[in-house]
């Protein structure tokens, strides 16, 4: 039995890689993941990847930040320690706007970015699980789970026909650092 875990199609050109995806899909070969050195537009639709929901997270965090700051300012300046400035209103809403705005932005940015890190399993020092070291440099890599798939030679041929410069049969899931 073959010890290959993943078959990698390595492409030099993003257009050829997209062509490779089409070919694999036409032949009902499920794709495990695609690794690229830059974002490729239009690939999500091809791979049936749902839209990111980070926008909702950003909105929720923004609302939370704004509410917390406004409540804090209200508590401090209206309830806990009102300051009489020339007999003006304690609840001076226009004066509360700048800091409320700043915290809305701050919470939106931090909340959404940390959600992104959490969802994508990114954190300082995490072992990078890279399948091919050149995928962050100049190669475009399609990874196919070898287990239970059609004969490996067929996949290799499909990838080569699509323009893959190299097809690798990896018997380890990740090549780097582990």
């Amino acid at each position, binding site marked *: 039995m073959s010890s290959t875990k993943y078959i990698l199609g390595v492409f030099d050109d*993003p*257009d050829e890689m997209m062509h490779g995806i089409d070919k694999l899909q036409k032949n009902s070969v499920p794709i495990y*993941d*695609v*690794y*690229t*050195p*830059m*974002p*490729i*537009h*239009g*690939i*999500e639709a091809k*791979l049936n*990847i749902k839209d*990111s929901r*980070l*926008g909702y997270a950003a909105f929720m965090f*923004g609302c939370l930040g704004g509410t917390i700051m406004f409540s*804090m*300012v209200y508590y*401090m*300046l209206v309830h*806990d*320690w009102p300051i009489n400035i020339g007999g003006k209103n304690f609840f*001076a809403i226009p*004066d*509360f706007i*700048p*800091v409320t*705005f*700043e*915290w809305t*932005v*701050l919470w*939106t*940015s*931090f909340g*959404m*970015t940390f959600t*992104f890190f959490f*969802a*994508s399993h*990114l*954190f*300082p*020092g*995490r*072992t*990078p*699980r*890279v*399948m091919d*070291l050149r*995928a*962050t*440099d*100049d190669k475009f890599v399609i990874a196919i789970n070898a287990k239970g798939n059609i004969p490996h030679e067929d996949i290799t041929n499909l990838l080569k026909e699509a323009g893959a410069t190299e097809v690798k049969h990896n018997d380890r899931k990740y090549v780097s*650092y582990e």
Partner: protein
Amino acid sequence: MASHSESIIREPLITGKDITYGQITNDVLRPVENMPGKAWWIGFSVASLGASLWVFAISWTFWFGLGEWGLNKTVGWAWDITGFVWWVGIGHAGTLISAVLLLFRQNWRNSINRSAEAMTIFAVICAATYIAAHMGRPWMAVYSLPLPNQYGSLWVNWNSPLIWDVFAISTYFSVSLVFWYTGLLPDIATIRDRAQGLRRRIYSVLSFGWTGSVKTWQRFETVSLILAGVSTPLVLSVHTIVSMDFATSLEPGWHTTIFPPYFVAGAIFSGFAMVQTLLLIARKVLGLENYITMFHIESMNKIIMLTGSIVGVAYLTELFIAFYSQNEYEQYAFANRIAGPYWWAYWSMMTCNVITPQLFWFKKIRTNIPLSWVLSIVVNIGMWFERFVIIVTSLHRDFIPSSWAMFYPTWVDVSVFIGSIGVFFTMFLLFIRVLPSVAMAEVKLLLKSSSEQAKKKLMDEGHVEPAEAEFYIASLEKFDSVNQSEYLKA
């Protein structure tokens, strides 16, 4: 990315022939992966000397107190707040290039956003040191935060623009840092996967485990876009709030409703000038002429010209409103600026900020690299004078002539300012040594659509009308690294 081709008559964003994805990485990472050259060492030595001067002068200030500065009872804010506003202003171009130009889909930002964002971070750090230092007792800076303290529930005054400033600057710094670092992750991963030994370990920690999978890229782009969306109003709010530090007072010369837009335009003006100052040197020293092209330089010069004109209109508006207000104190403040003891500062400001940027109307000047560099420094000097004029000339003569005074900087004032420039350049030079100064992933995105070779391919394949091709070839003269004869053969 490769799904569209850009119009042939648009200038290429990447010049040079036979550029590949791999070559972009090699070109950008050359200063990171190799020992620095002589130019870097000379720059770094000078900058570190400046930084040491800053450490000495700021330690002197903390040890002996603010009496070591030239401040007096009349001019209580001088070079400190001038330096603060100047640095915050310089910090604005980074977010503007990253965020606003991203929202407007201006692809030319891709080559310059990384350095500009780094510049933002370092400039805001310099600004923040001024704020902490000018308090006199910087260990008390913690009281600007709403923390329960030993005086009981004595909170900060949320009605005060000074506290808005604390929140605006700290938010701006934090958000810029997050924006910058998140954008760096794919490029740090590139360095990691090419490095060996200890460097690989360090960059591995810094890369957060980035792999470049499709889903991560999709989320990354969403995050970038939303961060750009929230940073854009943030840029406007920060300098608006800085201007309110002045505008909400009753000081003649400060109490002006034009301050918010005028400060924002001035900030963008000085920020772009500093980006220009840095990048014109960096592209040459780091060999990035193919990525930071004449088109980039010219575009930035156009923005400098636009914002310089807005600033010029703001100066004239101030004068007109002072005249129209019929307020004698206001009128005197402006007459004093123009012809008082600090006339030289006012006229330096006018010359540097209003007159010189107008030279960029001439194409020959805005596409001339040495002249652009000199003019960018002139703008930086002019913007420093602008802040000096606003602060010192307004304060030194206000309502009561008996309290009028002059401000003379001491050697500590001068050293703190020159030293802060040293700190800034030290940080920038270290940055270009350890992190990519051009956003590789974003530049790679342009290779198939907006590069010189992509356009040449279109021409060679006959997709372009002859008239358009001719126009394109003629326009190539502008790009310093493009040889026209190559095209005439085609």
